[in-house]
């Protein structure tokens, strides 16, 4: 055999292998049909950023997966609930009765989702709670699916990270008492930390962000805790940070989920004043991505969006949309798509999210990893550990 022939054969083999490896998925021909999907989120008010970020994530995911396998597209119908439980329930009613949507994604907080959960059985529409993490979300209705990790997992991991990894013995908790989510986190953290034979030096519940915290924090400081666990909203955090600065006290601080996104978007405080704080979250910029995660990152670049402008809500939006499409594809032959979606999601063993695999138990609760991040001087976050 001539050497040139051998080269030719090898080249051919290489090209063939390359094509085999990069075989593209068949193109979907649009059918022209649209399936209505509702989105309930705070698109105005104090939590407007949450709704906007989540919607941006959904749109990125929709750009990547524009059609179901049969060529149908999803028509998104947005309802603004201002993160108010009453308005969330009203949005659910309107989406069901007026728009006849097939499924709903909700980006509002745990209080709103809990309110929706209590009436969801009445409308029999599958509702995907994308960011809410209260453990009771899936308790009241079989139509609620929780995509985020739940607060029991979050608080327990936070407590054990502090106790078993940072090897700290004494922690003080300052929590926001007028929110079920934060209240639950405070209690669960305390329970787990005590169970791990750690000492909770103080647990303080705050009712308003306008309180003068100097006195409270001075008392906490006197009992010499090594870390402050702060399950609370952004305004409370600002007030506490101000008081800590005045007290010239710089303890290790651990925050709860979602707060990172708010810190990034606020303009009141310089970003470096939060540097070094730890926070539990669903997402981090430098974390290992799954294939879906990598495809979404490419899509983000294609759309000219700055990756660092995205946050946890955007990530949950992307993931939620991808999950909904995946399940809808399983129900294309079904005569009752709503029921099929709801049945299909329960017991999913391995859905590929952005940063890892997610499984769903029979109650609709997701089991997934969380990350512990640290805030940098420029407000971005670095991933420290991923906990499964």
């Amino acid at each position, binding site marked *: *055999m*001539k*050497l040139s022939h*051998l080269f030719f054969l*090898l080249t051919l083999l290489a090209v063939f292998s390359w094509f085999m490896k990069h075989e593209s998925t068949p193109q979907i021909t649009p059918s022209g049909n649209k399936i209505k999907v509702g989105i309930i989120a705070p698109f105005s008010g104090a939590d407007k950023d949450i709704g906007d970020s989540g919607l941006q994530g959904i749109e990125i995911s929709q750009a990547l997966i524009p059609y179901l396998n049969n060529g149908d597209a999803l028509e998104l119908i947005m309802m603004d609930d201002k993160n108010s439980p009453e308005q969330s329930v009203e949005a659910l009613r309107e989406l069901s009765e007026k728009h006849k949507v097939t499924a709903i994604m909700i980006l509002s907080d745990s209080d709103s989702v809990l309110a929706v959960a209590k009436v969801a059985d009445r409308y029999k529409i599958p509702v995907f709670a994308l960011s809410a993490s209260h453990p009771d979300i899936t308790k009241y209705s079989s139509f609620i699916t929780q995509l985020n990790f739940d607060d029991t*997992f979050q608080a*327990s*991991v936070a407590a*054990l*990270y502090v*106790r*078993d*990894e940072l*090897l700290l013995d004494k922690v003080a908790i300052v929590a926001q008492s007028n929110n079920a989510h934060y209240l639950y986190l405070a209690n669960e953290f305390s329970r*787990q930390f005590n*169970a*791990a034979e750690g000492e909770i030096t103080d647990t303080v519940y705050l009712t308003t962000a306008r309180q003068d915290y100097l006195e409270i924090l001075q008392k906490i400081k006197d009992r010499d805790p090594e870390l402050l666990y702060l399950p609370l909203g952004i305004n409370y955090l600002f007030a506490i940070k101000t008081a800590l600065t005045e007290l010239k006290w710089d303890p290790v601080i651990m925050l709860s989920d979602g707060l990172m996104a708010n810190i990034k978007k606020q303009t009141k405080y310089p970003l470096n004043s939060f540097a070094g704080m730890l926070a539990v979250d669903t997402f981090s910029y430098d974390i*290992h991505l799954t294939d879906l995660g990598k495809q979404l990152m490419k899509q983000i670049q294609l759309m000219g969006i700055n990756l660092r402008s995205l946050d946890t809500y955007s990530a949950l939006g992307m993931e939620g949309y991808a999950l909904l499409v995946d399940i809808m594809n399983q129900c294309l032959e079904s005569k009752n798509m709503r029921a099929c979606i709801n049945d299909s999601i329960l017991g999913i*063993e*391995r859905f590929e999210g952005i940063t*890892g*695999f997610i*499984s769903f138990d029979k109650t609709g609760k997701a089991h997934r*990893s969380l990350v512990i991040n640290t805030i940098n001087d420029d407000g971005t976050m670095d*991933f*420290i*550990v*991923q*906990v*499964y």
Partner: protein
Amino acid sequence: MTTYVNSALFVYTQKSEALVEQLHSNCFGTQLSALSFDSLLLNPEASLDGVRHVIIAGGLIEIKEIFRLALKYDFSVGLIPEKSEKKLLKYFNLPTESDKCIELACRENTQAIDLVLCNDNILLFKATLGWLPLLDTSADISKVRFLLESFKKSFRLKLLKFSFTTAKGQKITTAASGCILIQQQQESLISKIIGNDSTVNDGTISMVIFSPISLVVYSKILLRMLTAFRNKNRLPPGIGYIKSSQIDIETVPVLNVTIDDVSVTQTPLHCQVLREAIRLNIGDRLSNACQNVKTSKENVKISNLPGDKELDQISLKHIPIFAYASEERFRELFISLRDDAKMSSIYVTLMILSTLLATIGLFQGSTAVIIGAMLLAPLMAPIVSLSMGLLRGNIELLKNSASKIGVGIVLALSASAIITQLFPYKMVTDEMSARLSPSLLDLAVAIVSGAAGAYSKSYKEIMQSLAGVAIAVALVPPLAVAGIGIGRVDMNFFLQAFLLFSTNLIGITLAATFTFRVLGYSPIVYAKRGLGIVFVLFMVIAVPLYASYDQIVEKITFESAFKQKRFFVNGKYIIVQKVQLNRVNKPKIVTAEVLMRSTITRKDMQELKKKIQLHFPGKPIIRIQVIYNL
């Protein structure tokens, strides 16, 4: 004091007719009679009767014709070139202003200059034959344009057969892409290569022969032209230089000859310098340079050109990327390689000693002792000889070197096997295990060492023992481990280590062969069959190695996936400290070292296993070692 001619014939063209009035009223006391160029050509004999000085105002063609007449009728010439004839103005150092030019043309003191006739055509500047990428370009060409042009022209380079005969009768036969004859090389790119040692009255003509035997040589020539290289006595490779009063050129096939940018004749070409044949009014600077010039000696520099014996092998195809070489050109190297390929008692002794030392080092797990063995190993010489034998298709070299290597392998395996048998306890050390799973990375080590070996052999100034060690790194330990396998009567052990050795041997041979080729040691028609065999062997051996490399990648990916991972299992926090994928093939076996502060139960282990299998591919068998963090 400047004196002027009393009378002169002014020859004008249609373009320069306007000068007639100006010249008639000259203030130098020169009596002028004017005649058009066409009228002169009608009856030159009558027109030039009694004329001692002719002033010609015209272009290159008219001036050359006047030179031809001057040769015949023996008159001196004053030049008033057209403004567009910048080359002429520059060449004869003439003023650009017409007043000054007329003044110079009327002067009495003329300078005798040489005239070059090529096949009866006057050559004033240059004559070119064949392909001469850029050599005849002006020196002020921009570097970017120069590079672009060079690249473009490289696609059209090919070598033809040229024969040159000098005035002294020296005949040179070579292969070249083209040549350029130049009367004076000032301000051309050629002056960057051969310098500028000619004048218009030294009785000689210079010729540069362009013979880029490969694209590598072509690049070297270009680099020399691009950089202002100082040592003009040393010609770049692929360039020849002849300076003589007469040059005859023959080519196969016949080529067109371009003289002063006009294609006027064909080869064979006879060029002759007529010493101080005509007298001219030239610029002061050039005139001064012409004073006291002696006839130049004949100068022939052809050592960089391919010799006669190589010519038959040179095809008319496009030149190759790498250079080739005849055995005569690298005689010393080939003699040394032949010696290296011969069996000697020193080789046998060193081979046995180095393997014994390597085997002991492997059992000891001592890197230092193994390195000592590598220093002793005499494997480089026969492998390099084998590579050259393959490249040049030299059967004798091939046979000798291959048998020397074969004997070395048998000796090494035997020595290592015997010493293993003598050891009462035949443990497998980490140094041995490391040589039982060859991968593409080992092949990479071999390739680099092979290239280093061939390179060091090509240059006397490099200490060859250094490259010898590099080669030994890849060969001695695997060979010793294979011998240990025989000693242990463990076929799998032997085969794995021997696979690594074979891989490295082939890799080194192929890399050395390729390096010799790049360095220009291949024959003109190189041994395709030999290279083909090594290449096929290389590909065959690369397949299992690729699979092995894939496994390494999978192992690294799997292990790195556990970095910064924690597990929350039944209310217990598990910190993954270190993960090792001990077996890549199914079922995967994972060993993990975890840090905990609580005790782990059977139920926890089950849950941990479930989580690992959910999140990480391959459903591995998991073994954990718990370290309690107090």
